[in-house]
């Protein structure tokens, strides 16, 4: 678990959505450890972070494809 926290702390640097999600996961983990949120609430929050990470990958792909298509148009 210590290793996982260290990895999250390394990702949590910067302004990207991925970094913000890592910061939020660490924050939720602390809240859970302090007993401020229940296990069920913690698990649901983690599920949502995973869904956002997947959406981040998809939108990055969409942006990349948009850029490639626009470059293609410039060639035409």
């Amino acid at each position, binding site marked *: 678990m210590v290793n996982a926290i260290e990895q999250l702390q390394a990702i949590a640097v910067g302004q990207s959505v991925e970094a*913000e999600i890592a910061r939020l996961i660490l924050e939720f983990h602390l809240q859970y450890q302090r007993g401020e*949120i229940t296990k069920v609430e913690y698990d649901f929050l983690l599920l*949502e972070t995973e*869904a956002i990470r997947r959406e981040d990958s*998809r939108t990055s792909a969409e942006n990349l*494809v948009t850029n490639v298509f626009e470059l*293609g148009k410039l060639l035409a």
Partner: protein
Amino acid sequence: MNEKTPIYTLRQRLLEISLGVFLLSLLLLTSGCGVIPQKHDSSLVSHYVEARYEFGKLNCDKKEEWDKAYQAVAKLQIYADTRLDNNAANIKAIKDNLDKAKTTKSTLVCQNYIKLTEQRFELLEKVYRNRW
């Protein structure tokens, strides 16, 4: 001083890019993975701006004042569904998160869902900003 020979001529470079664009297009058209680029849609962006503005005013201690944000997100969702926008699922998740934030009795959990939803809005902004 010796002149260096260019590794790629302009013609080779253009041919490679064209081939890359063609293969990528073919892959996307056959995979149906929801990343096919869409054009800028000013009405969609307008709905997005309204939803984000109302979302920014949400306060977990004053849930009775959330109606405008709900309405703005609902309009954005209907518009995105109608236009078959690639991000319709993300917008639906924003609506679901609002529901979760509103129904929980814990202010902290409510704030957590608001923070997560903020990231979903960030993703929407990234995509809409990139469209031409």
